[in-house]
């Protein structure tokens, strides 16, 4: 008997994706996919969708199962060996606190979003790709929670990430980015997340974070990070594919897509500032500076990504030059902000030691010694005098990115940028021309943003005093404040047999 011919990769992909669809008999396509056209994107032929990875569902389950087995073996070994004691020092854990509270809920948000696009897109190739990514993102949220739960046994600030994500002032920055995308249509969502976030910016999140974890002895995070990142390559590829597909389908799609790219590039860049702060200030052993990362992954690689799309008429995202001008200021201004509001954060802040200040001077030769080092040194002196500085006021936030209005004009670095616009008789404030422009294009949506300081003043966050609000956030008295005075630091010194710091609690 003759054996059936083995299918090649392309045939197998077609059989295991396109052939899984069926034709509808008693409902129209418009009734089944009601979200597919209100954004103005015109798709004439969904069968033109090509997934470059050609991963079939059976291969997907095989690879994902193998990744999970490897990861959970490491997590077990990590717990059994008390490997939390192997990190460089307890300050490092604060980077994980930011990751768990700010990034892990985004993974869950992405899971929800891709479940939506998988249902909303009429094409089977896009449905299968969305389904895989939705499952991936749920896996990422789960593996991050499982991995970091080991640290939660020993360190403060890791105990309630999802409760915090929906309430805490600085976590409204990642939350609002994702909810902006989730509350849009399926095409805007996939442009925001797959293209702008995954394809253009995600390297800056995972490469420095996971390499930083490896450098700082955090075996568990390295493993969940690279396990997630192996999915990320597929997600990035989907991001490019979806943009090309939309652009090839109809010329009317170009201006809509360009606007989304402009919007989510800028919003994503603003969101990544906190990662830059982590790279420059929170890793005891540093991999690269924010400036170096931005040059490598955006200025060099990002330009090539956009060159690939130039034939369709896509240009570099508007305001990208501004991100380059800000690169020597961004992280210093953010760290000083979090240092000042350290009593209202679920992680600790500190002034870098002298060797770390020297590293920053070397990496930021044009700005650090001139504008930032003297302030950090002054704050350290104040702390030694028992006058650790905290800002007792509530910050004014940018209406769009929700970051406190702390950024200055790179051409005039001691002057803050204030932009404003009037909509329906109310005045709205912005940190940048880009954030103002995003608002002005969608004022009805953006004017409804949930800004934490406004909500506190309106009485929606547990009370009128800072302790009331922190209780509402589920913060404990050990979660925030100066690292030197923290329980984490005292415990670390005890576990490691180190001399307690003089200043420590």
């Amino acid at each position, binding site marked *: 008997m003759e054996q059936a011919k083995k299918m*090649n*990769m392309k045939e197998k992909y077609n059989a295991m994706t396109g052939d899984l669809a069926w034709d509808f008999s008693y409902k129209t396509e418009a009734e089944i996919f009601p979200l597919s056209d209100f954004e103005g994107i015109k798709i004439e032929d969904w069968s033109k969708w090509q997934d*470059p*990875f*050609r*991963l079939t569902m059976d*291969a997907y389950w095989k*690879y994902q199962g*193998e*990744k999970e087995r490897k990861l959970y073996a490491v997590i077990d070994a990590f717990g059994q060996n008390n490997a939390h004691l192997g990190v460089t020092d307890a300050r490092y854990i604060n980077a994980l606190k930011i990751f768990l509270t700010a990034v892990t809920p985004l993974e869950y948000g992405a899971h929800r979003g891709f479940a939506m696009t998988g249902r909303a897109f009429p094409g089977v190739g896009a449905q299968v790709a969305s389904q895989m990514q939705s499952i991936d993102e749920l896996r990422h949220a789960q593996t991050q929670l499982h991995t970091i739960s080991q640290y939660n046994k020993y360190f403060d600030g890791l105990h309630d990430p999802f409760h915090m994500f929906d309430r805490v002032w600085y976590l409204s920055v990642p939350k609002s980015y994702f909810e902006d995308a989730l509350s849009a249509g399926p095409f805007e969502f996939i442009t925001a997340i797959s293209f702008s976030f995954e394809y253009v910016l*995600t*390297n800056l999140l*995972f*490469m420095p974070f*996971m*390499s*930083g*974890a*490896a*450098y700082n002895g955090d075996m568990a995070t*390295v493993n969940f990070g*690279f396990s997630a*990142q*192996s999915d*990320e*390559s*597929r997600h*990035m*590829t989907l991001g*490019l594919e979806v943009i090309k597909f939309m652009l090839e389908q109809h010329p009317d799609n170009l201006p809509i897509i360009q606007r989304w790219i402009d919007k989510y590039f800028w919003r994503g860049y603003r969101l990544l500032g906190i990662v830059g702060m982590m790279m420059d200030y929170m890793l005891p052993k540093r*991999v690269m500076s924010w400036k170096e990362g931005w040059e490598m992954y955006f200025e*060099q*690689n990002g330009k*090539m*990504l956009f*060159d*690939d799309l130039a034939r369709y008429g896509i240009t570099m995202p508007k305001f990208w030059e501004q991100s380059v001008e800000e690169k020597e200021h961004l992280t210093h201004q953010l760290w000083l902000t979090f240092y000042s509001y350290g009593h209202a954060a679920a992680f600790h802040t500190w002034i870098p030691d002298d060797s770390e200040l020297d590293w920053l001077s070397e990496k930021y030769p044009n700005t650090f010694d001139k504008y930032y080092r003297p302030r950090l040194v002054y704050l350290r002196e104040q702390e030694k005098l028992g006058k650790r500085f905290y800002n007792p006021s509530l910050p004014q936030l940018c209406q769009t990115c929700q970051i406190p209005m702390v950024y200055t004009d790179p051409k005039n670095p001691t002057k803050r940028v204030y932009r404003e616009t009037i909509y329906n008789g109310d005045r709205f404030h912005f940190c940048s021309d880009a954030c103002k422009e995003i608002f002005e294009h969608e004022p009805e949506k953006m004017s409804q943003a949930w800004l934490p300081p406004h909500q506190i003043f309106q009485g929606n966050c547990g009370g009128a005093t800072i302790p009331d609000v922190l209780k509402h956030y589920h913060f404990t008295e050990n979660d925030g404040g100066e690292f030197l005075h923290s329980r984490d630091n005292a415990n670390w010194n005890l576990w490691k047999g180190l001399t307690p710091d003089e200043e420590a609690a």
Partner: protein
Amino acid sequence: MSEKMVFLALQDNEDARPIREAIEADNPLAVITQFPGVYKIDAPGRLVINRESVEERIGRAWNPQDIHLSLVTLSGNIDETEDYFALERT
């Protein structure tokens, strides 16, 4: 940089080592930069991983899709068959 570059990054572990060696053998213009736990491989125009080159090194069958277990990130347009996995930018 006028030349169009592609790159991929692999986990620095034993699973990826034969892939790295195959890349080095088959892509003379590739440049490898080491980071903690991961390395980045940049090449002008095209970067290819050949199934045969990996199989020679591991002594058993290897499917180019197994790259999914070691891949950290990439940049370029994917060209994938049963016999190779390539990134291109022209």
